């Protein structure tokens, strides 16, 4: 049995015990929870909850409430995080109700959903929270029954003393347990005894979703609330010069028109602070339709920005960022990238003597891959409710990283951080986009100026043309082969606008004696941000396509080549800091090989490709089968093998992998945000093509590597290798390599 010292969540437990003051802690259940309307009758009647710790509250009649600390954007943490607590608490899942925890950095650490880290970073804390609460309940029972604690056992929310035949539901001991001092050490369950974790549990929000309950930021309402919309420049590289709102002000339902400045001049930007359009024109009115229409009547003059430098401070690491003037276009981006690719770049990693090896190589294979900007296109556009007064500010918003947005907005509004209160609503998708809380700052400034509670709503067009895109990337891969077709050198040189994608210590680094990784960047006034598996989503497309071509040139099976390289990386790794576990990487390849029946004669008209990737601490491999029917590509089958350690909720995890596969195919085939004179050429779903129901694979089979390794994330890792597997399958089907995303452009030329 694993022992675990309580150190990680000391703060939260301390707070719980301090609040309880050694006595019974009563908090008001429904009111501290997820309040979506102002209508009191919608709230649950207050219950008396015995707060055992920051995650667990139990009523006398044995209702067990478990709080989920992280914001939810569809990866199902609202179910899976409480499952971990419930497992160690040893409760019947049927007795559990789940509630979104309040945003409170004094109680919870890392209330941030992103980087596939929610499970990984809370795993031990949540287990400890459950196990220590169970221990406190046992201690309470031991005291009441006057028996040694070691003789008190638990099963499915009930305490037992076998010798005397006594038993009590958790609820009966909860008030006593709340007064028990926090244990210094707890025993965690053996993984093999798990009953809740590793068994499929339905989404706790399922019924609310299918009945259309107001769960999302967009649904937040408050009596007297006004609607606000921003009017941002039509192109990157432009800013507001002047405006005439005289007509707008007279329109029905319109309250005010004014400008706000997102960040004050000279502000040092922190992580997730963005600078897309700093001065924004705002229309405030009674209803969405009125504001939407009035905004069209604004007479606005725009002008070009001048180049400026800004300081970005990411956890103490400061860097200068150049924001160039000018109106940028995809065409000029592409030619600039081609130029830059020829110039010397920054060396990111070097093993051996790649220059000499390439000079003496019998054969060099060189291929270049390109990918465009991508818009996140969360189905719920950006929005935020704000009510700012002289003394405090309240927000309700779909945010991935409320902690960072809170600091920025506090500074900008001139309020202490303690006076900022944020309610984390459910998010209608995130994919990285909602880590950037500019809309919270905008809403705060609007409410402050309008002196009213407001809800800022982005239209789809606002959302898609605001920037914070997946960067534009390119990479040239080179491989050196000797006369016997052995791989003797590997070189990747990647660049991007405005950041390069290269992860220098990732496979095949460590597997090739002579290795060089380089990167270069082109500054831009187009803003970018994290997009589901940042950088990896490009690398896996490029590198995994390249490995496929390399295997063909070496006369090897593509899975066999990868396994040979991984064996080398394991037995005799080249260089240091290789960031992957070669065995686990090989594990997903072997699993997908077995499950897909790789190597068996391919069915007529089916063409298959493989790709694997490691990112965000997890491993994923896919085999994709495509067919060409009447000149159209049809994705027939997808086989996915994933190693993310212990799988908390297998059915929900499968759902997420299926989604990543479909999202990956959609973005690989169609994803594209292009620009002309600074202006995005796609602004809604009638111009930005998204994958639809009739374009998905006929079959997706998902397999997880079974092991007892502490869990890592799943939101991102299955996404990147989809691009590579699809490109490789398309090659088999068309005998053409797909170097440029979106693949549909080249497919349509066939």
């Amino acid at each position, binding site marked *: 049995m694993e022992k675990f010292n309580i150190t990680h969540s000391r703060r939260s437990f301390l707070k719980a015990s301090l609040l309880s003051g050694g006595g019974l802690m009563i908090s008001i259940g429904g009111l501290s929870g997820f309040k979506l309307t102002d209508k009191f009758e919608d709230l649950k009647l207050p219950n008396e909850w015995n707060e055992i710790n920051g995650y667990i509250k139990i009523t006398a009649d044995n209702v067990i409430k478990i709080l989920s600390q992280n914001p939810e954007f569809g990866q199902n943490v609202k179910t899976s995080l409480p499952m971990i607590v419930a497992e160690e608490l040893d409760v019947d899942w049927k007795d559990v109700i789940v509630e979104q925890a309040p945003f409170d950095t004094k109680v919870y650490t890392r209330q941030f959903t992103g980087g596939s880290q929610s499970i990984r970073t809370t795993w031990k804390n949540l287990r400890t929270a459950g196990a220590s609460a169970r221990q406190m309940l046992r201690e309470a029972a031991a005291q009441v029954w006057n028996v040694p604690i070691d003789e008190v056992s638990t099963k499915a929310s009930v305490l037992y003393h076998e010798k005397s035949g006594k038993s009590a539901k958790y609820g009966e001991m909860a008030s006593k347990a709340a007064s028990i001092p926090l244990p210094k050490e707890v025993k965690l369950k053996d993984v093999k005894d798990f009953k809740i974790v590793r068994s499929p549990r339905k989404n706790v929000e399922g019924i609310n979703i*299918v009945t259309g309950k107001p769960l999302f930021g967009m649904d937040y309402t408050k009596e007297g609330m006004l609607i606000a919309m921003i009017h941002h420049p039509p192109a990157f590289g432009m800013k507001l010069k002047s405006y005439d709102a005289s007509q707008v002000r007279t329109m029905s339902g319109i309250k005010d028109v004014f400008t706000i400045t997102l960040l004050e001049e000279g502000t040092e930007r922190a992580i997730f602070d963005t600078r897309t359009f700093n001065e924004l024109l705002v229309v405030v009115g009674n209803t*969405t339709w009125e504001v939407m229409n009035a905004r069209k009547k604004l007479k606005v003059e725009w002008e070009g920005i001048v180049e400026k430098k800004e300081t970005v401070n990411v956890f103490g690491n400061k860097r200068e960022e150049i924001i160039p003037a000018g109106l940028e276009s995809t065409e000029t981006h592409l030619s600039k990238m081609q130029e830059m690719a020829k110039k010397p770049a920054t060396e990111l990693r070097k093993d051996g003597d790649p220059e000499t090896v390439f000079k003496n190589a019998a054969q060099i294979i060189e291929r270049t891959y390109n990918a465009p900007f991508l818009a996140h*296109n969360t189905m719920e556009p950006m929005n935020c409710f704000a009510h700012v007064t002289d003394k405090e500010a309240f927000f309700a918003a779909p945010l991935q990283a409320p902690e960072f947005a809170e600091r920025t907005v506090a500074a900008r509004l001139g309020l202490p951080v303690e006076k900022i209160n944020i309610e984390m609503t459910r998010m*209608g998708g995130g994919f990285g986009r909602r880590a950037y809380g500019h809309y919270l700052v905008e809403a705060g400034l609007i409410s402050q100026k309008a002196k009213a509670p407001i809800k800022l709503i982005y239209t789809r067009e606002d959302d898609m043309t605001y920037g914070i895109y997946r960067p534009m990337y390119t990479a040239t891969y080179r491989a050196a082969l000797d006369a016997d077709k052995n791989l003797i050198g590997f070189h990747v040189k990647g660049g991007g606008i405005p950041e390069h994608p290269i992860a220098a210590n990732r496979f095949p680094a460590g597997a090739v004696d002579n290795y060089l990784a380089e990167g270069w960047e082109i500054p831009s006034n187009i803003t970018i941000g994290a997009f589901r598996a940042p950088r990896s989503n490009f690398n896996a497309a490029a590198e995994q396509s390249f490995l496929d071509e390399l295997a063909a040139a070496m006369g090897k099976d593509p899975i066999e080549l990868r396994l040979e390289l991984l064996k080398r990386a394991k037995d005799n790794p080249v260089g240091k800091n290789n960031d992957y576990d070669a065995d686990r990487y090989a594990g997903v390849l072997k699993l997908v090989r077995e499950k897909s029946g790789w190597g068996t004669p391919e069915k007529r008209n089916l063409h298959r490709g493989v790709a694997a990737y490691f990112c965000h601490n997890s491993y994923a491999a896919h085999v994709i089968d495509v067919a060409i029917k009447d000149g159209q590509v049809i994705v027939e089958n997808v086989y996915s093998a994933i190693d993310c350690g212990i799988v908390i909720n297998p059915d929900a995890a499968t759902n997420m992998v299926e989604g990543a596969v479909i999202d990956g195919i959609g973005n690989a085939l169609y994803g594209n945000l292009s620009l002309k004179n600074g202006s995005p050429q796609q602004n*809604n*779903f009638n111009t930005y093509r998204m994958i639809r129901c009739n374009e998905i694979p006929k079959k997706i089979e998902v397999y997880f590597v079974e092991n007892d390794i502490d869990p890592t994330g799943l939101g991102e890792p299955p996404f990147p290798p989809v691009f590579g597997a699809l490109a490789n399958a398309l090659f088999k089907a068309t005998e053409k390599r797909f170097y440029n995303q979106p693949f549909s452009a080249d497919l349509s030329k066939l």
Partner: protein
Amino acid sequence: MAKFSLKINGKTQQVDVDPATPMLWVLRDHLHLQGTKYGCGVAACGACTVHLNGSAVRSCQLPVSSVKKQEITTIEGLTENGDHPVQKAWLEHDVAQCGYCQAGQIMSAVSMLKNNPNPSDEEIEGYMSGNICRCGTYSRIKTAIKSVVKK
């Protein structure tokens, strides 16, 4: 501004709005029926799907003035407790990820099955291709619909 008397989810409701206001915003802003979602405003995503006399329509393209005596059903009015066979299938197959598009998906599916109780795979795909899901839950949407067809 003009007064309209609307039959929504079996109840008659009065609103005083610009006649051009799409039903989407009448539902969301004036009647506080927030289950119908805004996704694109150009009938390209299906998040705002409601039933007009039992057939699926995109409420973002339905001016309030055109509704007249026709009956509107939103996700809130589909059932009281979420026990429509399609809703139950959605729960059984745990379809949702973020959940934002699902009310629209369900309203589309219900309408399709009403007009075609036994759709083929191609018919399901074709009909449901009007509803976008960025999370990529389409395969479960199909499975859920097919499970209703079998029953």
